[in-house]
């Protein structure tokens, strides 16, 4: 299992293709925070996102923040939410907006594998609940759109050494979640027989 450092947004699709399920990745550059209501607005209500998502790294988050007098936001505690609820947005995010990486916790079900392979996307597993550490890796909240959805706005963060992340689903059709679940289902049969 290799280790990589990747800077987002990416311009070269090979940056994604070199990543394999199980690899360790540290991320630099800019990432976009997004959540249930943000994506419902984009895809179910048909509102164009006011940020460029080409080559982007999306983080499933609803950050805890403090509003400053100048209208900007200071971070309080920024962590990551469960991804599975938002799996249906994977394909349109890649196809329509050119998103290349989605990061969250707990993984995506198998329906994400095919579109991620076809569109050259990866799913990064972060450690859910490790928000104190994650907050230190977010240098600044640079932009916030759709503040009325607080905290489920569209956020732009500048990050430094964001990770360690694990490639959960790669762009070659491999998913750790699929493999772990298949092995566990087989194991369950064995355990049931022992009960």
């Amino acid at each position: 299992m290799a280790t990589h450092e990747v800077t987002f947004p990416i311009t070269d699709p090979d940056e994604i293709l070199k990543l394999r399920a199980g690899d360790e990745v540290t991320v630099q550059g800019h990432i976009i925070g997004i959540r249930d209501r943000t994506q419902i607005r984009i895809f179910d209500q048909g509102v164009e996102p006011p940020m460029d998502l080409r080559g982007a790294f999306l983080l499933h988050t609803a950050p805890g923040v403090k509003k400053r007098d100048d209208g900007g936001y200071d971070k309080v505690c920024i962590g990551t939410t469960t991804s599975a609820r938002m799996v249906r947005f994977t394909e349109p995010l890649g196809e329509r907006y050119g998103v290349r990486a989605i990061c969250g916790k707990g993984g995506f079900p198998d329906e994400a594998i095919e579109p991620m392979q076809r569109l050259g996307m990866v799913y990064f597993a972060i450690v859910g609940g490790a928000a104190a550490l994650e907050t230190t890796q977010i240098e600044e909240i640079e932009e916030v759109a759709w503040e009325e959805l607080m905290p489920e706005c569209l956020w732009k963060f500048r990050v430094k050494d964001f990770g360690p992340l694990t490639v959960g689903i790669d762009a070659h059709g491999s998913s750790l979640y699929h493999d772990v679940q298949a092995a566990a289902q087989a194991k369950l049969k064995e355990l049931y027989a022992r009960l």
Partner: protein
Amino acid sequence: MIATDLETILEDAAAHLYVWALKDIPQDLRDALADAAKKETSVPGQRVLQTILRNVQVADDQKNLVCQDTGIAVYTCRVGERFPLHPARIYQALKAGTERATIEHPLRSNAVHTITRENTGPNTGYRLPIVHWEFVDDWDGLDVKCVPKGSGSENMSFLKMCVPADGVKGIKQFVLEAIVGAGGKPCPPGIVGVGIGGSADYAMYLAKEAIARPIGTRNPDPVVAQLEEELFELLNETGIGPMGLGGDVTVLQCHVEHADTHMTLNPVAVNYQCWAARRASAHVAADGTVDFDREA
């Protein structure tokens, strides 16, 4: 101690407990996480556990929250029959304390109306916070424990009305199926709370009581304690691993609470508590003395 003063003291204690629970996880949990890291042999699993340990340290150093999900505030109260404050006032004090902590820190407010999804207040609303009550004969004290419950793990709650013929085997099979199905979503390795017996609603209530116990404490009924041991071993054979990425440590512990039930019932409820199994407790005496207790 007059009741209004006691209510203020309890409000202060609740505000403190909520923030304390979110920032400083109990020692038994720290030990269990460190043990898990010693046992784990998978590479992604080890990466997850090392990150968790680093995160706990960063939360200590920076006085930040361990996890951004401030949860729904759940309190368990053991009220002595001679405690001078009525439970109705205890509830109002806990609610006011939750609100104050949320506004003053500030904490992310998660409370919404369940249909309109509009925010209902600073982590409070209709029937929020949630309080579990137990009443104790011949005592004048109050024990209160705050358990901020994150949604990632709460979403992984399951109930099955097994039939008596399913027996203990049916209970074990359902718990295994639930935890494997949950995969990485509830932030494993955590505490699996199992409630058995009683009624459908009471089984789930007991499952929540089970996750609030210090890690590795055993049910005083030896038959139930044996089930805890067996489930703990079985669950760690599933290979789900830390954050569902595969590995040896799927759960830190399994706790079971039980109630006697109807002869034709065999309910089993599963409530999951993530690795950031936050809880903080206080003992309040009738004279208003508050003793904060890390171990309870």
